[in-house]
């Protein structure tokens, strides 16, 4: 075992981790970035459509309108102070990315080009607004590359392919992490004053997902096992347009450019569900509409998918109908959506300029996660008590600026805004904080768990367990949910956890690049998070944002303008047996904007 000492340890090298690392080191901290993937492999690189900021480069815009859309999009569960910070800091953050060299697309005047995106409007919901700053349909790629480049320039220290598997606590503070060096299988202890988790989401709980194989929620799972709560886990976003069966994402930018959703009769069905902004309604609304169409037998050939049509003739027909003067050509579509066209051509053999794309909703984004305040400090109860030394940012964190449903382009904003704030806070914190010693035997528990997994001699292949979990979660804890179904998912996942604890079968007993072992350990994280998700979903007896209960169809502001905090009741991180939870619903949603501006008060959400 090797021990490394740093002021600050950043776990994860996606947009959030890199931004935090940059700012912590610019602020004078000695920083290590620990990542299971090479930084440029992080899932931030797959983000397509854009990053939202009220720059107003094409038409008037205002951060307050952005905050309003965020709050409304989040079905009033977003903490309004956080939504305000998000929208206000977004402008500065995007400009800063440009100053770091990010190659945004440009307007004829040379400014950052912006496009429409779902749920983003001007003047408090009046009409769609061009707010998403983009670089073709590879905005996330450019952000990830640019931030990594800047980290190289600033000589940030990276530990690539080091997989963090435990978090270390002592005297009520976080003092570092334990990681496996993948190439050797050796354990390393990273000891520091501040640790920031930026490990991304956990879409791999579901069968059809836009998420990478690596998105297994490690950071959320290991902090949860060590006593940190998970907030609002019942809210997981299904993006309306994933490639049929594969789940690969087709950005909302396609609809932003004028693409429309059509059912088997060629009807633009979103006109029924969101008369005002139609295909550009919030994601939860559009995903539910697609499910309802499919349920009514309106899927293509009666099957479980619909069409997304961005052929110029279709787009222009609807533009004309709407009285707009803009028209698109095939060439422009090629230029603006090159990667999307490439995905469809490679994986489907479909050319979107000539044919519509078959799509279905795909598990996409975790609104819930490790609770933090607006400075990325982890908070562990309804009184916003800070856990010293522990920080979280990006998708694994829950600030909560996204509430019950995140708007498109707001995750990339979240990464840079709260990653940056976290990095600055850490730089300040490590200047005066003491280095708290490591706990005794810091690796004992995780070593024992790895030994158990490595030497298991049962019958259950990890791949089989994962498959069952993904299916049951898709069927019962997906776009629509209902009590008995959720309970069934809970029971099944519990059985899987038992098999995981007692009956695993592994082929690789080695140390170097033992991906069999690592994948199995990741499955353990997924099972824990699936269980927390399902149990939180069962407890919330209302429908709000992405959490849509068929047995409780209405939103219930009387009882449920609160966040769910789920605590593990297990004595230790790997205690065998059922995963008992303590579900706390005392944390009230911040409604600070509504206090002075009635437009922010919770009301019925229509698009």
């Amino acid at each position: 075992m090797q021990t490394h000492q740093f002021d600050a340890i950043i776990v994860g090298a996606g947009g959030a981790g890199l931004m935090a690392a940059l700012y912590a080191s610019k602020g004078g901290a000695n920083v290590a970035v620990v990542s299971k993937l090479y930084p440029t492999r992080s899932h931030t690189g797959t983000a397509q459509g854009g990053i939202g900021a009220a720059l107003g480069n094409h038409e008037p815009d205002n951060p307050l309108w952005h905050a309003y859309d965020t709050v409304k999009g989040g079905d009033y569960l977003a903490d309004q102070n956080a939504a305000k910070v998000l929208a206000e800091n977004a402008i500065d953050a995007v400009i800063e990315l440009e100053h770091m060299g990010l190659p945004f697309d440009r307007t004829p005047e040379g400014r950052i080009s912006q496009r429409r995106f779902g749920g983003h409007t001007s003047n408090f919901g009046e009409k769609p607004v061009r707010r998403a700053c983009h670089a073709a349909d590879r905005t996330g790629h450019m952000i990830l590359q640019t931030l990594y480049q800047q980290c190289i320039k600033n000589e940030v220290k990276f530990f690539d392919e080091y997989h963090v598997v435990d978090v270390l606590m002592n005297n009520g503070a976080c003092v570092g992490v334990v990681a496996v060096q993948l190439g050797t299988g050796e354990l390393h202890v990273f000891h520091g004053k501040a640790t920031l988790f930026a490990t991304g989401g956990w879409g791999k709980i579901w069968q059809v997902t836009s998420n990478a194989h690596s998105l297994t929620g490690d950071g959320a799972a290991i902090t949860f096992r060590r006593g940190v709560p998970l907030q609002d886990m019942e809210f997981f976003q299904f993006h309306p347009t994933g490639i049929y069966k594969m789940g690969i994402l087709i950005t909302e930018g396609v609809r932003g450019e004028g693409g429309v959703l059509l059912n088997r009769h060629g009807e633009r069905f979103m006109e029924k569900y969101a008369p005002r902004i139609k295909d550009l309604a919030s994601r939860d609304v559009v995903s539910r509409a697609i499910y309802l169409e499919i349920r009514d037998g309106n899927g293509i050939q009666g099957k479980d998918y619909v069409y997304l049509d961005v052929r110029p003739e279709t787009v222009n027909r609807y533009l004309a109908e709407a009285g707009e003067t803009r028209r698109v050509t095939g060439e422009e579509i090629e230029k603006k959506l090159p990667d999307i066209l490439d995905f469809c051509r490679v994986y489907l053999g479909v050319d979107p300029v000539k044919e519509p794309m078959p799509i279905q909703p795909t598990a996409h984004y975790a609104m819930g996660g490790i609770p933090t305040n607006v400075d990325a400090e982890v908070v562990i109860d309804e009184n916003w008590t800070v856990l010293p030394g522990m920080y979280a940012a990006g998708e694994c964190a829950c600030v909560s600026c996204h509430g019950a449903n995140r708007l498109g382009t707001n995750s990339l904003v979240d990464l840079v805004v709260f990653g940056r704030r976290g990095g600055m806070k850490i730089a300040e914190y490590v200047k005066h904080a003491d280095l708290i010693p490591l706990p005794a035997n810091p690796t004992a528990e995780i070593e024992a768990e790895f030994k158990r997994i490595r030497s298991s001699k049962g019958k259950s292949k990890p791949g089989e367990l994962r498959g069952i979990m993904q299916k049951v979660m898709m069927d019962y804890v997906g776009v629509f949910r209902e009590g008995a179904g959720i309970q069934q998912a809970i029971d099944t996942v519990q059985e899987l956890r038992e098999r995981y604890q007692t009956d695993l079968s592994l082929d690789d007993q080695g140390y170097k690049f033992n991906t069999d072992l690592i994948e199995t350990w990741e499955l353990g994280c997924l099972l824990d998070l699936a269980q927390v998700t399902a149990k939180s979903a069962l407890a919330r007896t209302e429908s709000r944002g992405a959490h849509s209960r068929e047995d409780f169809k209405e939103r219930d502001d009387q009882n449920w303008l609160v966040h769910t905090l789920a605590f593990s009741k297990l004595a230790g991180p790997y205690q065998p047996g059922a995963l008992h939870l303590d579900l706390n619903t005392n944390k009230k949603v911040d409604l600070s904007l509504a206090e002075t501006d009635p437009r922010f008060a919770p009301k019925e959400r229509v698009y």
Partner: protein
Amino acid sequence: MDVTFRIRRLNPEIPGKDKPYWQEFKLSDVEPTDRVLEMLHRIKWEQDGTLAFRRSCAHGVCGSDAMRINGVNRLACKVLVKDLGTKIQVEPILGLPVLKDLIVDMEPFFAHYRQVMPFFVNDTPLPEDGRERLQSPQDRERFDDTTKCILCACCTTACPSFWANGSYVGPAAIVQAHRFIFDSRDQAAADRLDILAEPDGVWRCRTIFNCTPACPREIEITKAIGEVKLAIMRGSPEGIIQVQDIQHEA
């Protein structure tokens, strides 16, 4: 349909398997539209958990799973069975040390990347209005192609000049340099051109063209390298050729 995979393997920890060897796996119920990556997962999850390879995004944008598939560098997640037939051979990419099965040591590759100053440099004052630096759509277009690089190493490990001499920076690093050299906002083009004019820089490129078809992002790599060569001869990205420079380079 049935497909036979022939995979080049190596496990440094197991005597007898610590030298490269071939192993065959048979898969049935394969759909023509299945990705090679899915098939590798099926082998790993159903038949042999020890098979090691890198992967993440599964749709050709993260650059994790460059492999030599039927003799050509590809991303396993971006090539479909129907384009390969029923006998599929998979090996690690060439020119980098193999660590286990399909996993190679990427450190030399990233070291070359870091060599070319792969970051934006502009120390002039920021616009006074606090807004973005301006760039015309034409100037932005100038380096668009090379912004697409995902550092998968398909190009560099397809290059015979790199195989022959691992100290050559390789096509990927030149692509990365190109992205900044031709960015109208950047100011360190001269430094990068100096680095690439060194013996292990662009002149080791013999225009063999292997890199361009290997690129899963369809970057016109040979063209980009040519533009960098020309810029070195001209002394700047858009400069005029000085006769003495050509003599000097020759």
